[in-house]
């Protein structure tokens, strides 16, 4: 269970303080998925960083599994916009980053995930040698190498072409079913939110406040994109975002 309780996040100090997130509360049950959508730069990424323990809220509390989040947790993985790969490390080293840093995650995990994602023949390559889609898959392998119970994603599919984007959305859906982690996805893409979010929270312009919550219980299958409900959820989202 993830519990976000009246969280407000500020950046900077003194007179230069900028409010990024204002009084946001929500809950997410174990194994469920949630999409956070809002205009670019509204502060949703700050909220995600607070969830991952990289940033402390000014007021309010974030609890994961009954424990207040104060620093990065081992059971929470974060996937960044550009996959967050280190250019000077090989695919194998990047996928094993948590193991490299903490020393006590089983290596077989990363190997298994890399093989599953079709990356076992590029393990000794550097990120610069990979296509954009492959880089994202390495980022996913890195996140899954620690068998997380929560997967946080910050616009993980930004700047991908449509086809690769859909392929990786499908991959996320399959991995979610397979691994059973809770998933929080930050996006500004309506279609992505409707495809991957069981619940979708819509944010206002900065500072981010919740302006609407849309339930999307029928998501979860690969052919959901052809479902009329999918189209309906997308129009609801468009309306909520005042597009």
């Amino acid at each position, binding site marked *: 269970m993830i519990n976000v309780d009246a969280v407000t996040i500020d950046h900077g100090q003194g007179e230069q303080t900028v409010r990024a997130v204002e009084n946001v509360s929500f809950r997410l049950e174990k194994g469920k998925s949630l999409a956070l959508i809002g205009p670019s730069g509204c502060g949703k990424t700050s909220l995600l960083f607070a969830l991952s323990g*990289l940033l402390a809220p000014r007021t309010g509390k974030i609890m994961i599994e009954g424990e207040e989040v104060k620093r*990065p947790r081992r059971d929470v993985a974060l996937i960044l916009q550009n996959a*967050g*790969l280190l250019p*000077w*490390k090989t695919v194998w080293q990047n996928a094993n980053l948590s193991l490299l840093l903490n020393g006590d995650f089983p290596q077989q995990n990363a190997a298994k995930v890399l093989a599953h994602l079709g990356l076992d023949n590029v393990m000794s*390559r*550097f990120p*610069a040698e*990979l296509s954009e889609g492959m880089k994202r898959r390495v980022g996913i392998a890195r996140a899954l190498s620690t068998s997380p119970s929560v997967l946080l994603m910050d616009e993980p599919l930004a700047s991908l072409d449509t086809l690769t984007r859909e392929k990786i959305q499908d991959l996320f859906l399959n991995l979610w079913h397979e691994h059973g982690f809770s998933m929080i996805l930050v996006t500004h893409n309506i279609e992505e939110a409707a495809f991957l979010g069981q619940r979708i929270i819509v944010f206002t312009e900065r500072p981010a406040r919740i302006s609407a919550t849309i339930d999307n219980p029928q998501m979860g299958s690969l052919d959901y994109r052809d479902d009329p409900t999918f189209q309906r959820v997308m129009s609801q989202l468009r309306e909520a975002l005042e597009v």
Partner: protein
Amino acid sequence: MKRILTYVISIAALFFVWEMASIAVNAINQAPLLPGPFDALSQVVKNAAELQRNFAASAWRLILAILISLATAMPLGLLIGREPTLDRFLSPIIYITYPIPQVALILFLFLVLGTGSATKVVMVTLALFYQILVSARGAAKNIDEEYVTSVLSAGATRWQVYRHVILPASLPQILTSLRVSIGLGIAFLYIAETRAALGTGLGSFINKYMLFRRDKAFAGIVAMAILGLLLYIGVDLIERILCRWKYVKRRPLK
């Protein structure tokens, strides 16, 4: 192979210009002031043993100075680049002392450290120190924060952020500035070596012969050029090994 060929062609061109300059200078002054490249090269062969001794003396001073300046300026520069409080305190000191020509300290160094190798190594270290410090600071300041966030979210400690992100991300820029600074280091070494009477090193060799045996002095200059070139190639090779990721083919695999 192609690289070696271009080297050969450029050296031939250099010798040609040198020979022309030698003919012109000597004709104008009506005295053999500037020896040509072949006079100098034949002196390199004739004085091989003496040159080798002095070459070795200069080479180890330079290498030692490179190692000391890397070991001190690199960590300090990276720290200043990443820790704002440290930057606020130390940057003013750096920018006040940076423009002081370190050569101005040479007599003082001779007084304190004597006329042996210590002064010469310190002199070159001082020159390289600032170059490396400033480039390490700049490189560390400009690192894409996504890399830092990436390792922090995976549970990295502060030390691990330096080890896995700040250092490898800054290394190419630091090594490039080191490569560029080798010329400066050699100039400082030359000055230090010529100031110490009866010392070893290519600087004192050149100095000793410049007035009466210019062909030998120019053999020393050739040796100094070779030393610079070898160090340049050495740093280049080290960069290609340590920063292999910068040189991979950027042709995305499917």
